[in-house]
């Protein structure tokens, strides 16, 4: 609404309906009312600034100090020492490699499965009821807390009593992997769990993307002689492109920060095989109590987030594609 500029006026400019001077309380009411748009958005910004932005800036400052959890007021300025320590520590590169595998595999799996299922659920070829049943079962993991996610997959992947290995043995694999007890397979287990948890978001995101595609475009393709698979390839997927890009960006950002489920399932083990940057940072802060170094890790994590977004935008050709 671009109706008037009156909310920019001052108390004295405001007169009553018939030009008579208003009472004090009326004038106050008018003054508040005329500034209402700003009053309405202020609390959200106060919250965002107070609980997100200000702490984030503080985190950057903390990363330049030596601070221990035992005495938070005892701070010593150390400059970039934490960053130097981190970047020269081979362990950090092991963590980064783990993170890259975890984020890469999870993001690809999640977006691919979510998009595929969204396309399968679209356009009611199954009938609404069946589609609703399937959709409900696909979204369920989203409503599950990280703790239950972690434990239920620990149970599923249990080498002895787990269903997954029972199934693999049924398929004829005599010695299936020990999953979270195995150095080679633990990361795969963690990725399977994370895809399970994250796919519902991609599914719903792509569903809304599909709804933006006009029905007549499918009809035009159909009348034009395109088969179902050709339509998906030449019409649906290209038109979903901006949604897929946005989805990739969001899921990557989310996944860099995921560690609750890993904490529950493996605690980063065995022998740090599933330790990722977010978990490492959390342990640095609350197990080792080194707040300064943990903050430096957080800043690095933020840097990776920004780099990721920049990379995607470059790969897909510009921000316009995303919005």
């Amino acid at each position, binding site marked *: 609404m671009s109706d008037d500029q009156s909310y920019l006026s001052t108390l004295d400019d405001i007169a009553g309906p018939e030009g008579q001077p208003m009472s004090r309380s009326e004038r106050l009411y008018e003054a508040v009312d005329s500034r209402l748009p700003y009053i309405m958005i202020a609390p959200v910004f106060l919250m965002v600034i107070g609980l997100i932005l200000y702490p984030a800036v503080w*985190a950057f400052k903390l990363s330049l100090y030596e601070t221990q959890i035992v005495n938070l007021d005892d701070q010593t300025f150390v400059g970039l020492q934490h960053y130097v320590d981190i970047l020269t520590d081979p362990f950090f590169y092991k963590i980064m490699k783990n993170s890259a595998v975890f984020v890469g595999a999870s993001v690809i799996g999640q977006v691919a499965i979510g998009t595929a299922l969204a396309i399968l659920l679209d356009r009611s070829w199954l009938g609404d009821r069946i589609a609703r049943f399937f959709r409900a079962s*696909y*979204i369920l993991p989203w*409503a599950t807390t990280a703790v239950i996610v972690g434990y239920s997959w620990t149970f599923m992947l249990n080498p002895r009593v787990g269903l997954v290995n029972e199934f693999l043995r049924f398929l004829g694999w005599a010695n299936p992997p020990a999953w979270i007890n195995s150095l080679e397979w633990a990361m795969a287990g963690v990725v399977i769990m994370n895809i399970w948890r994250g796919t519902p978001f991609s599914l719903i995101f792509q569903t*809304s993307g599909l709804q933006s595609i006009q029905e007549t475009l499918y009809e035009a393709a159909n009348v034009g002689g395109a088969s179902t698979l050709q339509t998906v390839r030449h019409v649906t997927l290209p038109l979903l492109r901006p949604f897929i890009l946005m989805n990739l960006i969001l899921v990557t950002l989310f996944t860099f920060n995921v560690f*609750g489920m890993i904490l529950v399932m493996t605690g980063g083990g065995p022998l740090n095989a599933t330790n990722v940057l*977010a978990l490492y940072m959390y342990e640095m802060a609350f197990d080792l109590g080194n707040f300064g170094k943990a*903050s430096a890790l957080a800043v690095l*994590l933020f840097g990776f987030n920004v780099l990721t977004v920049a990379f995607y935008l470059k790969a897909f050709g510009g921000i316009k594609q995303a919005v």
Partner: protein
Amino acid sequence: MSVRDQLVRWRYHWHNATRFARDHPHSALVRLSGLGIMVFAAIYFVLPLYWLFSAAFKAPRTIDYPPSLIPEAISFENFVTIATETQFVGQYMINSVLVSTGAVVIVLVLATPAGYAFSRYDIKYKQYLMVAILFVQMIPFLAMIIPLYRIFSVVGLLDTLFVITLLSAANTTPVATWLIKGYFDTVPDGLEEAARVGGASRFQAFRVIVPLAKPALGAVALYAFVGAWNQFIIPLTFISSQSKWVFPVALYEFISLRGVVNWGLLGAASLIAMLPVLVLFVVFQRQFVAGLKGTEFKG
């Protein structure tokens, strides 16, 4: 509908399907593989929870090799143990409900007027402000934990339910503002222009329009509730006393303390912890989808 009607219907659908398959073998193959993928996916998404919850109904010590999908005998012993020996059906539930409800209230109170204002008024730098509140979500939540820990310890709010409520709300508010703005965009301008011309102040006009956004507010409330209910790292970090545990923390500590995992007890505790969300989920499935989709909750 009687069983017979149902059978007749199935036979009709079966007949239709076989005829379709005969006439269009290629399309039928495509459809069949589509259906196969969907069934396989459904198993992948449902089985882990089903299995954990079904363990709850097995008698203690029957969970062993080989795994069985269906409990041989339903036993409630695990639930009895959880209810009598822990605070799951008591303090933790109360805490979780308090935190989630509180978060819903905060989110609605803050995001509704903000979303409305962004949709309806000319606000300076509107686009930048809207993008800014989403952009801050790019800052890793972890980076904030340490400073927040310090702030709350200075203010003396560490180890209170209020802190988790506030932080859970802060997590949801930006997205909620966007969703509500998007919904108000679909409500025609004419309505409150009529109210304004009729002599209503801005605030009165706002109150006239808000009830129209009920579907959006409902979806946002669900979204905020589930989000707060499932918070794990926030309460784990900011709560230290057992009397203030919420479900996820309680579950985690419950298992950590025992060392050896008792799947039956864990299943029972998990089911209790997830039950409210499951009920909400079943009842409001469509709103869940709509709430996450953002623009699509017009109906």
